[in-house]
């Protein structure tokens, strides 16, 4: 049975999908929330094990008659997504209990969302990309407003939905035009076309606009700060890491396989968007007092750094972008996790940076963890964030984009101000009011410590990942060269 064989190679997605259905039925039959959480963790843990195995041992192949891929970048994307989902569920469980809104519906939604992301990261056909993107987005719209009686949450969900539906229109029209120009939706087959005239370029531009919306690149970033601020904090972490990773893996794959010709022509576009995104993200983040909103603008800035890699467009640059996504997932889930911990039992206004005054000496572990994550986000050495930025900028210099890198480094230097500002408040200001933080749960602290450990580990050991990522692209180039 070919389909069974394909399913075996697509096991992480299958496990998460079955898990999502099981958890959904548990919710329907009113099983205790605690049991639902445990079931979710079992299925996601299993999927994480399989995804890790696939990452190292899976062979590159096409599944479901060429609609999806396994191994290589697909396995890498799957690993990051499942990893992000696993830690998001741990943090979300604790967070929702903390804010006294424990909706069990959040677990099936998170799992279906993960399935969509895996589909997106493993797609080999524009139709699969679209299906994955929509499965992911629809679940994210619901997750953004999961706390139904919070006005900001509902507002952010509605905003996200309207903007997302709008961008989907662009995306779908782009696919339709590309199909019209080339007659294919399969990525390599579109890649065989070098220039299809006006329809081809119209399709490419609309497809790119759809992608830019989803990854929130300037000038398509307007929804990001509001949605991240309004959503439950841990869900915002999920949106900023796993969702962006899946979309970027798909974007890199589309650029590398389907539009290699267009990617060369689009260097200017990517450079301009990278410059705008880096400058706007960092400059606006400078004046934010709300820490969550600051992290939202910082995530826009990080998209800018990723676009520097896309503009370079070499194999090394694409590998560096993929490594950046891994590093960003570790440090950003961690940073949002600590903020979610501080926020618990408090209202939205507790996200104001002034309310962090003097909290560094209460629960010192949490403050140290937040410092590690923020140092890494700022790109200070011995952290994954530093290596990620270094690799992306180095690849861009090799590709001759010196001016772009200079702007990137300057913007990155400015970003240190708003990251370090949080730490200044944590350690160097007297508290205005007495806030007693609760003892964090053991699982919560352990998972954050693990994330911090990985952040530091990939600040040192970067060679193995990079050689693995380079091999992904090397094999794919050899395969495309041998194909015709």
């Amino acid at each position, binding site marked *: *049975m*070919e*389909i069974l064989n394909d399913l075996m190679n697509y096991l992480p997605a299958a496990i998460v999908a079955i898990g999502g*259905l099981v958890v*959904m*039925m548990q*919710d*329907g*039959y009113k099983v205790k929330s605690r049991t639902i959480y445990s079931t979710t963790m079992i299925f996601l843990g299993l999927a994480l094990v399989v995804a890790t195995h696939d990452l190292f041992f899976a062979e590159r192949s096409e599944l479901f008659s060429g609609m999806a891929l396994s191994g290589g970048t697909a396995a890498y994307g799957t690993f990051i997504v499942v990893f992000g989902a696993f830690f998001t569920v741990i943090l979300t469980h604790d967070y929702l209990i903390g804010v006294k809104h424990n909706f069990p519906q959040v677990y099936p939604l998170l799992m279906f969302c993960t399935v969509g992301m895996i589909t997106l990261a493993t797609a080999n056909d524009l139709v699969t990309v679209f299906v994955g993107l929509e499965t992911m987005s629809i679940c994210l719209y619901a997750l953004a407003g999961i706390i139904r009686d919070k006005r900001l949450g509902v507002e952010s969900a509605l905003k996200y939905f309207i903007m997302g539906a709008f961008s989907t229109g662009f995306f779908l029209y782009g696919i339709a035009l590309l199909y019209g120009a080339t007659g294919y939706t399969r990525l390599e087959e579109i890649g065989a076309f070098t220039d299809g005239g006006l329809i081809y370029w119209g399709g490419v531009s609309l497809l790119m606009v759809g992608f830019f919306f989803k990854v929130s690149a300037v000038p398509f970033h307007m929804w990001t700060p509001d949605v991240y601020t309004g959503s439950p904090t841990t869900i915002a972490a999920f949106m900023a890491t796993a969702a962006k990773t899946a979309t970027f893996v798909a974007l890199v794959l589309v650029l590398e396989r389907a539009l290699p010709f267009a990617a060369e022509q689009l260097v200017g576009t990517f450079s301009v968007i990278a410059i705008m995104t880096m400058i706007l993200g960092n400059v606006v983040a400078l004046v934010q007092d709300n820490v969550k909103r600051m992290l939202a603008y910082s995530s826009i800035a990080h998209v800018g750094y990723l676009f520097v890699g896309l503009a370079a467009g070499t194999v090394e640059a694409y590998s560096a972008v993929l490594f950046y996504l891994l590093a960003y997932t570790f440090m950003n889930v961690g940073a949002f996790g600590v903020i979610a911990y501080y926020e618990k039992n408090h209202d939205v206004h507790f996200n104001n940076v002034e309310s962090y005054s003097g909290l560094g000496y209460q629960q010192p572990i949490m403050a140290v963890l937040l410092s590690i994550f923020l140092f890494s986000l700022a790109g200070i050495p011995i952290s994954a964030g530093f290596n990620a930025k270094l690799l992306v900028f180095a690849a861009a210099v090799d590709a001759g984009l010196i001016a772009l890198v200079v702007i990137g480094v300057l913007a990155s230097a400015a970003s240190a101000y708003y990251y370090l500002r949080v730490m200044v408040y944590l350690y160097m200001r007297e508290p205005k009011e007495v806030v007693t933080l609760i003892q964090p749960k053991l699982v919560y602290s352990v998972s954050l410590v693990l994330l911090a450990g990985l952040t530091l580990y990939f600040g040192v050991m970067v060679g193995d990942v990079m050689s693995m990522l380079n091999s992904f692209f090397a094999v794919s180039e050899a395969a495309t060269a041998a194909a015709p």
Partner: protein
Amino acid sequence: MFEQYLPIIVLIGIAVTLALVLMLISRLIGPHRPNAPKLRPYESGMDPVGDAKERYSVSFYMVAMEFIVFDLEIVFIYPWAVRYQELGFGTFWAVMVFLSILTLGLFYTLKKESKSFEMTKTK
């Protein structure tokens, strides 16, 4: 190329003519005893005049969800059934997986629906 659309145009013509003829016959030979409710536009039993921003019972939402379940089912099942001979036995299992997932969704909405109907009853 327009010849192949001729049957459709004929069909539309027959439909329009038939509707007009039937209305004409009922106008000619039917009894006419109009009253206020009869003359109102038909709006599925609801009051046709009033604020458009009306609040519905949440149970309607569940019914709509179930409609979506069956609607999707027919969209995928029908083309598959028509082409089954060519597609082969492998697709049978693919469709069975799809159907079982939909059935789970149906059970989920039924469970939720019973809850929402309870809510309306106690009100």
